[in-house]
């Protein structure tokens, strides 16, 4: 039946033959030779090195740190055996761990409050048009752009027990006495002052960051919208509360999350200023993890302590992720 139906006159056969031959020629094209799959193959090839690097040097170490935290691995001994949650139990039973956890959280919260206040006020000032604004902006962001270990050294010298320039100033305006008198603050030597001193360095370093992020947010609010709100007779604070804040909320959140992650996980400031002393007054989780894991060589214990930062950081990262995904990018 099929044979007879395909049979036809010579005039009719030739166009049909042409059509068949086109279909036949198209069929052998394999999946890899199509435009789309070539593009995708090329894409995956370009992407592979980055994915591999990140998997090998971030993903795998992260899993490895989970394993280390469950083992008694140490620098001295190359064989490690599984010890279950022993390292976590040991951490929970040590007083230093609780001190470090409390200091870490207190440090981050207090510093965030000051950075928020200083950053917001500075952002409002930098929002005004004035002569030399770019230059002044360049000056105030220097603390953030200076490498961290470099600026901490400068602060360490400013906190010197005898030649502290801060004390010179305080003494000059009459807040404290002269060197040797009872009220002379030894910034890095007294427990309550030492934590304050570390927080001050963190605030000094990062308040320009808060200001710049806020500034980027403020300038992204179209002036037409503000003008429209002004025409409607709203006050400055109403406009701020109901127009500006909702519009810049995503950028605000990202800035806050970034700063919190970096503050919570920063070792440099405290390590260089006080090494966690005096009497654990400035011991924070990163310092404890470094001292236990690297200096004392107890890799397992150190990894377990460092991992305690993860539950603190995880909610922040999830917030960040949701924020980024909502954005059209």
């Amino acid at each position: 039946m099929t044979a007879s139906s395909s049979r036809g006159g010579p005039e009719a056969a030739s166009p049909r033959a042409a059509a068949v031959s086109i279909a036949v020629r198209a069929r052998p094209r394999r999946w890899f030779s199509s435009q789309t799959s070539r593009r995708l193959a090329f894409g995956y090839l370009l992407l592979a090195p980055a994915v591999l690097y990140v998997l090998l040097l971030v993903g795998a170490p992260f899993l490895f740190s989970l394993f280390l935290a469950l083992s008694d691995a140490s620098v001295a001994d190359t064989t490690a055996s599984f010890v279950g949650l022993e390292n976590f139990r040991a951490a929970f039973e040590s007083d230093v761990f609780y001190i470090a956890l409390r200091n870490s959280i207190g440090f981050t919260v207090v510093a965030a409050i000051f950075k928020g206040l200083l950053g917001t006020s500075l952002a409002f000032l930098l929002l005004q048009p004035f002569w030399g604004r770019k230059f002044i902006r360049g000056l105030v962001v220097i603390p953030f752009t200076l490498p961290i270990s470099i600026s901490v050294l400068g602060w360490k010298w400013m906190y010197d027990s005898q030649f502290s320039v801060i004390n010179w100033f305080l003494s000059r305006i009459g807040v404290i006495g002269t060197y040797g008198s009872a009220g002379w603050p030894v910034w890095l030597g007294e427990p309550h002052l030492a934590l304050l001193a570390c927080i001050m360095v963190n605030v000094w370093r990062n308040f320009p960051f808060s200001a710049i992020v806020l500034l980027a947010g403020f300038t992204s609010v179209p002036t037409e919208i503000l003008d429209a709100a002004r025409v409607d007779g709203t006050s400055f604070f109403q406009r701020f509360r109901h127009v500006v804040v909702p519009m810049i909320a995503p950028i605000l959140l990202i800035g806050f999350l970034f700063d919190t992650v970096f503050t919570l996980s920063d070792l440099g400031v405290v390590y260089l200023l006080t090494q966690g002393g005096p009497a654990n007054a400035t011991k924070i989780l990163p310092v404890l993890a470094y001292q236990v894991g690297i200096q004392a060589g107890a890799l397992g214990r150190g990894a377990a302590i460092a991992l305690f930062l993860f539950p603190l950081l995880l909610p922040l990262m999830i917030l960040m992720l949701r924020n980024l995904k909502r954005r059209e990018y």
Partner: protein
Amino acid sequence: MAAAPRTQRQKEIRRHLWIYGAITPYVIVAIFPIYWMALTAFKQDPDLYRMDQFPLWFHLAPTWKNFSYLFYSTNYGAWIVNTMMIAAWVAVITLLIAVPAGYALARLRIPGSENLGIAVFMTYLVPGIILFIPLARVVSMVGLQDSWWALVLVYPTITIPFCTWLLMGFFKTVPMEMEEAARVDGCGYLGALLRIVLPVSVPGILTAVIFAFTLSMQDFLYGLAFVAPGDQKPVTVGVPTELIRGDVYYWGSLMAAALMVGLPVAILYNFFLDRFIQGITGGVGK
């Protein structure tokens, strides 16, 4: 009649005075520590360690002694060379990996590319403090412990995610038509990338290089944990750990050492700060 512009001008001047007055405390707080460091670096010791004088200016002639001490009696020169070598290698590795990845994510319409991009960027947020202990094992496994090559291996974990994200944004701004035109003219995907996209992306690539450099200069933890020998350290770790001997601090040369590397980095970073902020906030603001 002539009074109107004049009051306008006076108003403007008054507004400026008000702003300068309000912003001065911030500027002083921000740069005083740097001024103090610079002053210390140039002071002679007898001028530095005394308490009966106004400390914020010189009482003896400024000196270069603190700087020459660094180069003649310490490993400072070696640290600077190490830092430069590390930065150069990190920049090369970052570019070789982040440029293709950023291009693929931005342009080749890979399924799920948006999520992949976000995932890569999120790794920038995994802090070193969680990774440094396992990475110490990785570093010694590949035999790079106690050499600055260890840092060449680990710094790209910071710079690749950030630069991929940055370049992704950048490649999206290159008009698609240019590439399509090139492909119509017979270029393959690779040809279009190499001949059309890369040349117009030079500013973006340069920005990525700067970040590869400045972000690796901001690290302290990895340098401290992975590189022990004195002559192998990068300058940001060598200065605070090696120049301090016991409890004796040579503040003059310490400050000289700190500023000589700190200021150039700070100034360079300063020019690219807006791109950094744009990068992390996903391009809002411009």
